């Protein structure tokens, strides 16, 4: 690794299980990755691959029946200083970090906002709780500026509105406003534009890019949209069934995908700027993680599967300093 890159989050060997009536769901199965300061790191994968669970685990937001079984999340509060393991902090200590230094933007804006409070109140509350402002009233004034910065139309009226009075897009803008209100170091954006329209998504992504540059923000972007990955990210990790199957620099990943799943996924995305005669689909469906396939979890759908794939878990192989893959084809 290059020496000037300072890590901000280092996830080591994370395991998360969900204890359901049907059985134990092995949602995250040994995930490790590092996010460097000032970069946009992407977790990409399909529904149920564990990208959201990974994001939530970083600040122990996993609720029962889920449980973080083992692993470390090292958070480098200041560059060069000793990291703290977020998973070992008490809820009290974590709460000071969550929402202030590490903030979230979730998928469903209607679920992130409280229907009983105005948008202005909810933005103020975040700042008030973390001691940035001394009264909620002061927060309302600041909330107008924050709403302006997230391109909310007519912010003076909108601070007094309740969530049900806003469109889905405006609600998400408010949520983004809340998450940026305390000037976080790391923003974890979990499918932040899935609910938004194309032109609005583009505006929000431009906004995130701009804010990122201005504030030297680090962004962990979680998405299933390969287009967004290509547009936004510096480095990408592709997840499948609770594991990272491939991680690389974004240009490298799109030019030279190695894992059969990544290859298939890239071919399955309909490209709006190219005429495609036949999309390639991946046969079968994502496995049930109560009984995950042994060995490589992709082997039942993989056209290159060998005997070894069915029994042994593929190791992490660094094919170049910017590219690692977990697949027996490259051992």
């Amino acid at each position: 690794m290059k020496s000037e890159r300072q890590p901000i989050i280092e996830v080591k060997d994370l395991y998360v299980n969900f204890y359901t009536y049907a059985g134990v769901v092995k949602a995250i199965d040994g995930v490790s990755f590092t996010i460097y300061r000032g970069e946009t790191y992407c977790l990409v994968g399909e529904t149920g691959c564990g990208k959201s669970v990974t994001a939530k685990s970083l600040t122990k937001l996993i609720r029962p029946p889920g449980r973080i079984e083992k692993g470390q999340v090292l958070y480098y509060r200041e560059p060069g200083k000793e990291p703290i393991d977020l998973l070992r902090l008490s809820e009290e200590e974590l709460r000071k970090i969550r929402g202030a230094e590490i903030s979230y933007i979730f998928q469903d804006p209607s679920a992130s906002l409280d229907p009983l409070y105005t948008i202005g109140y909810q933005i103020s509350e975040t700042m008030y709780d973390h001691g940035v402002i001394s009264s909620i009233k002061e927060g309302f004034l600041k909330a107008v500026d924050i709403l302006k910065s997230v391109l909310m139309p007519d912010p003076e009226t909108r601070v007094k509105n309740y969530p049900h009075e806003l469109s889905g897009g405006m609600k998400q803008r408010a949520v983004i406003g809340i998450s940026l209100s305390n000037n976080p170091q790391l923003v974890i954006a979990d499918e932040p534009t899935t609910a938004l329209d194309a032109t609005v998504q583009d505006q929000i992504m431009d906004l995130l890019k701009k804010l990122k540059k201005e504030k030297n923000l680090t962004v962990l972007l979680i998405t299933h949209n390969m287009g967004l990955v290509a547009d936004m990210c510096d480095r990408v990790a592709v997840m499948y069934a609770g594991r990272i199957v491939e991680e690389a620099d974004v240009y490298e990943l799109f030019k030279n995908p190695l894992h059969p799943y990544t290859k298939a996924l890239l071919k399955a995305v309909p490209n709006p700027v190219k005429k495609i005669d036949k999309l390639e689909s991946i046969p079968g469906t994502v496995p049930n993680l109560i009984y995950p396939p042994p060995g490589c979890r992709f082997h039942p759908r993989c056209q290159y599967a060998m005997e070894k794939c069915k029994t042994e878990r593929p190791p992490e192989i660094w094919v170049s300093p910017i590219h690692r893959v977990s697949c027996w084809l490259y051992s």
Partner: protein
Amino acid sequence: MSTPLVKVVELKKYFPVKGIFFTKGYVKAVDGVNFEIYKGKTLGLVGESGCGKTTVGKLVLRLLKPTSGKVLYEGKDIFKLKGKELKEFRKKAQMVFQDPYSSLNPRMTIFDIIYEPVKIYKIKVSDPEKFVVELLYSVGLNESHLYRYPHEFSGGQRQRIAIARILALNPEFIVLDEPTSALDVSVQAQILNLLKDLQKKMNLTYLFISHDLGVVRYMSDYIAVMYLGQIVEYGPAEEVFEKPLHPYTKALFSAIPVPDPEITRKREKLKVPGEPPSPINPPPGCRFHPRCPFRKEICDKEEPEFIEYEKDHFVKCHLYSRK
């Protein structure tokens, strides 16, 4: 060219917004829409949420009554159909909905779900079980799925079941309202390919509604781009994608991130500010003018005509005049 299977003429649908005593205004969900769909072809209807795509889809199936305008199916106005003719139309024209989790009755087995329309239309089938199994095979499922319940299936499989259900009636025209937006990419590709295969095999005609331009390009022969209740551009898919005319179409296309970092980061983009305005009080003149970077004097005064700028390629914009 032959006569179109579906022809939509000046279709309008206004929804009243009720105040306490009076009607406060109207949501002009669809406001003067014209298009044609030819047999065996796919028209892709794209636009952002709230632009009226789904309302158009429901209108052409007579699931809603229009405020004015006509929908001609094989030359007949569907809103004037009655009795037997209407029943026949309902059988031929079907819809696949967006969310396969809410479009299947959780208390019915797959057999019952697929066989129900056959019972309703009193179609004579000698061996119901065999009939349903054949349908299951045609959508990539098999007989082991026959007596299971919807909750046992994944999203993609459910969408296959929903497709099998409408195939039971041997339809001609299918409105696909965002059929894959609830699905994952790898599964989406399976469903899209299935729909294409079925179209070829059964000579089906599709109205494909989607906000995903990649998907629309893959599926469609013709494209109609909607903005705020109106079609702003209509033409052959490849031409619209390669040479978009309307500024909104250009903006929409450039807002879509392309799954290739080399292309998407260097691409020339036409950025438009703001969000679509409320369809209750749409802007006067051209509805796109408040966001349009090429706005002229005339744009906020006169509504542009929907003109055929090039052969088969229509646009509703003051920048283009009839040749």
